[in-house]
């Protein structure tokens, strides 16, 4: 870990912007500027490099690049605002130069539009429920944003219930609003989460790790015994199994797996499978 830190320190001391391509997968610190691939060509060895002639010689072809969490736009460059590893994703189809983001770790959640989160209903005032999502203020949830809800047919939501929903409005200027319905009007699994079970909190990075398509932890956990899990992007996980003991074991595994190596994890799973 000392080597990437020293490299980063050197670049900060030199205060020269680095090309984003060369820094992929390395640790970046807030305040660094990153160059995008096109600018990097322009600042190459004095323009001596011959660039292939493009059909429209006048316009410089600009590729749209998306800067994700942890990065900001600063003129033509990307400015790093969180410390972590820089990642890049190639565009699958269509135009665009791909997505750059910083893979950072934090416990405090900031509401983001489109995120699916688990919230706890804290108050019911008139037509709106106040839902605590772990952000700076409680989100509002209208009683009409449930599947099949009308003015006469109100959803059965009490204070203290767990809600799985997504944000439709989430920015720093307004109170976040969430709904339990998608744009077509279907619930798609959102709404009140059932009885029993256990809700606990983990770091945001762990949630993303567990929800990755090739996550081994989830595959192994699924083989243990029948269970149900709901992941909220705000760091909350709700688990339920047939007995209380199984639920607690599951909760402990998920909390601890963040800091375990894969060998330790396999040991624990094999011990569990035996018992």
């Amino acid at each position, binding site marked *: 870990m000392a080597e990437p830190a020293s490299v980063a320190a050197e670049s900060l001391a030199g205060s020269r912007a680095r090309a984003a391509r060369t820094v992929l997968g390395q640790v970046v610190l807030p305040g660094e500027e990153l160059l995008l691939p096109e600018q990097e060509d322009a600042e190459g060895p004095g323009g001596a490099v011959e660039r292939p002639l493009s059909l429209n010689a006048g316009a410089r072809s600009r590729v749209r690049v998306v*800067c*994700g969490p942890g990065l900001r736009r600063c003129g033509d460059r990307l400015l790093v605002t969180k410390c972590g590893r820089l990642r890049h994703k190639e565009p699958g189809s269509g135009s665009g130069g791909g997505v750059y*983001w910083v893979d950072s770790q934090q416990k405090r959640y*900031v509401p*983001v539009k489109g*995120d699916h989160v688990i919230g706890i209903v804290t108050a019911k005032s008139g037509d709106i429920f106040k839902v605590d999502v772990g952000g700076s203020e409680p989100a509002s949830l209208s009683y009409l944003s449930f599947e099949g809800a009308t003015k006469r047919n109100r959803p059965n939501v009490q204070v203290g219930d767990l809600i799985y929903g997504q944000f439709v409005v989430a920015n720093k200027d307004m109170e976040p609003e969430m709904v339990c319905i998608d744009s077509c009007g279907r619930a798609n*699994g959102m709404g009140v989460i059932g009885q029993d079970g256990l809700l606990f909190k983990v770091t945001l990075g762990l949630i993303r790790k567990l*929800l990755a398509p090739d996550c081994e932890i989830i595959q192994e956990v699924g083989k243990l015994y029948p269970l149900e899990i*709901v992941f909220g992007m705000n760091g909350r996980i709700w688990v339920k199994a047939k007995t209380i003991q199984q639920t607690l074991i599951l909760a402990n595994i998920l909390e601890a797996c963040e800091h375990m190596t894969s060998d330790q994890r396999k040991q624990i799973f094999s011990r569990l499978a035996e018992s």
Partner: protein
Amino acid sequence: MQRGLDSETKKQLEEEEKKIISEEHWYLDLPELKEKESFIIEEQSFLLCEDLLYGRMSFRGFNPEVEKLMLQMNAKHKAEEVEDETVELDVSDEEMARRYETLVGTIGKKFARKRDHANYEEDENGDITPIKAKKMFLMPQD
């Protein structure tokens, strides 16, 4: 006696009025700022960056509805091309077209008066031929 002003003097007066009004309006005497077309889009959501699975999961049949949802949402997310399931038709399209063709005649017959029955002559096969255009009086075109 002059009835009103001349058209010329009228125009001049109008122009002067317009000038006065436009001069009263305030404006910034700055050079036009060119808006730089930014090609970097800022997004704060992780959904674009990483392909994440659907948040609700159920294993070994604990909650069958959630397991169905899992298949649905993850398949959508992986963008598997779902082949358009052609609904098996009980009656083919051609047959439907034929039936409708005759249906129009049958129902039309019900509401047609005696004189109009001539239009619904039946063929040898019993199919009703389409109505021919009636010969009506045409106004002389001049």
